[in-house]
């Protein structure tokens, strides 16, 4: 329950609004700056004092990106690896989450919990350095299917932890009723449990998808030009001899604006799901 506003003085209210407005502005400014830079002409980008409003917007930076076949492929790769790995993580993760939700004790539960926590807690490089060696040895470096399963694996802990409480929340009686009606275990899962857990699965898919969309270390080390994703593409601007911030800002905007919008639109669900998953993850 939120505290009632009754006891607040008008001055207090103004202060409250002022603090929150300033904080919100600071939090949002980098996003605003990225987007506004992306629709500026090169010359406006470097103008001092900085041009905050009142420049002539240009879509040149975006059209330049979308005319580049490389960029089209980058976007396609990002979408493929994000969607593919999310589906795999949800399939594998929902089964494990169901098991963890329903069986308090089973052979391998403790080792599984330990593994998931370590996978979540270990710095990515620890895994990526030997993986690079292993994958190079078997010729799987820079292959899209490999990246998809790797993405799915690193996001498994998160997927499992977010979904477990959703499965726990499904009343056991419903499953039992289905069993009385003669359904098999798999049918129960498919026709009763899964549909009820679907909102949770969808929310999980959202988070896992976002994590996959943002993933950087895996594709930059283990990927290739053919599998280049958006974060890798964007990071290329740091070392490229480019004197132009426009396309960079446009590519960055394309990466972050969908996420920002998603956060705004799906806020309620995000808050609920994340606070559940984040507690475990």
């Amino acid at each position, binding site marked *: 329950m939120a505290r009632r506003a009754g006891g607040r003085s008008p001055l207090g209210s103004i202060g409250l609004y002022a603090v929150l407005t300033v904080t919100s502005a600071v939090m949002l400014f980098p996003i605003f700056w990225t987007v506004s830079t992306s629709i500026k002409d090169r010359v406006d980008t470097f103008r001092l004092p900085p041009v905050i409003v009142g420049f002539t917007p240009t879509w040149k930076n975006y059209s330049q990106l979308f005319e580049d076949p490389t960029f089209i492929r980058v976007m396609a790769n990002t979408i493929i690896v994000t969607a593919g790995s999310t589906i795999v993580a949800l399939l594998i993760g929902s089964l494990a989450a169901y098991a*963890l939700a329903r069986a308090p004790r089973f052979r391998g539960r403790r080792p599984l919990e330990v593994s998931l926590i370590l996978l979540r807690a270990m710095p990515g*490089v620890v895994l990526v350095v030997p993986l690079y060696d292993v994958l190079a040895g078997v010729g799987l470096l820079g292959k899209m299917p490999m990246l998809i399963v790797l993405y799915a694996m690193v996001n498994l802990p998160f997927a499992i932890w977010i979904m477990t409480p959703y499965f726990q929340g499904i009343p056991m009686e419903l499953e039992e009723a289905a069993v009385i009606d003669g359904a098999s275990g798999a049918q129960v899962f498919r026709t009763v449990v899964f549909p009820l857990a679907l909102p949770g699965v969808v929310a999980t898919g959202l988070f896992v998808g976002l994590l996959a969309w*943002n993933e950087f270390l895996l594709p930059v080390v283990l990927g290739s030009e053919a599998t280049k994703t958006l*974060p890798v593409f964007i990071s290329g601007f740091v070392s490229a001899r480019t004197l132009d911030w426009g396309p960079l800002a446009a590519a960055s905007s394309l990466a972050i604006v969908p996420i920002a919008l998603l956060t705004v639109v799906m806020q309620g669900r995000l*808050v609920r799901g994340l606070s559940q998953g*984040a*507690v475990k993850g």
Partner: protein
Amino acid sequence: MTAEGAPASGAPSAGSVSSAGSVSSAGSVSSAGPVASNGRLAGAPPARNWIAERRARSAVLLTLPTWVFLVPMFFLPLGVGIYLSFYDKTLGFPMEPSFVGLDNYRTDVLSPVFGEALVVTLLILALGLALQFPLGMALALLLHQQMRGRGVFRTAILVPMLLTPVAVGLMWRFMYNPELGIINWWLGVLGLPGVDWLGAPWPALFAVTFVDSWQALSLVVLMLTAGLASLPTSPEEAARVDGASGWQVFRHVTLPALMPVILVTLMIRVIDGFKIFDVVFILTRGGPGTATQTVSMLDYNVAFTFLATSRASAIGVVLMLITLPIYFLWRRVSTLAERS
């Protein structure tokens, strides 16, 4: 595991499952706080044990696909990493790798460079926590007030959380530019001298911390507001009726009740702070010099800049060992969270 995974054929007897199922209902989906993950059948009478056994057997099967992923892609590489750390494999060196015992640990782990990286990592972590938690707590309390437009503010503060670190890192880099960046320009407007944000050691450390905390603050605020919302109001009201001041209520009633959520959030931040990589990679690459070279950045440099696979593996093994105790911390914190 194959023995345990033997099929449990035949439909389960409905009646008995029913009674076992109604023992307790699991944590409700809508509750924002920590959710218990087990304990459902803890009090089941011995006669019902076979139900638990059947569940256990199918659980083994259901978790099998997860193991199919973890074994070749998590445990195998870790094993290879341990193995490589005792050799001298370097990409581009003409000779075959040979066994060198603990040499890599001596030269690369027991070196001032690794110590420095550890200090830098912990420093960024500590500075970040000191920034995120007081600020996050204050914002969570403000957002907990009943007011018009609360949702708008909350959304604004949450937006940075899930943004692509690489993309925002690059834009911050632009904003930090000492000559052309907007941050120094603002400082100039305020009559303050410009700062060479990414060029001088301390400013660079703050610059990295600030970008990381900018995103982390969203998570902290999210967790704490969710925690506050789940607290019962009666103890607070009772304390207020007893004449406690706002600060006293917060200090002696709200804060203790919120402690489990704070601890969980703290743990998440400690884990993520220790792993910090993307933002450092984009903003400074660990520079100037080694001023922002975190352990992940160092390991990356040794592996992929010096091409010294074995030396990087040795560093990786030590980072792995540092991570192991987190499991126990995790268990303690989640037990605590579940108890509340």
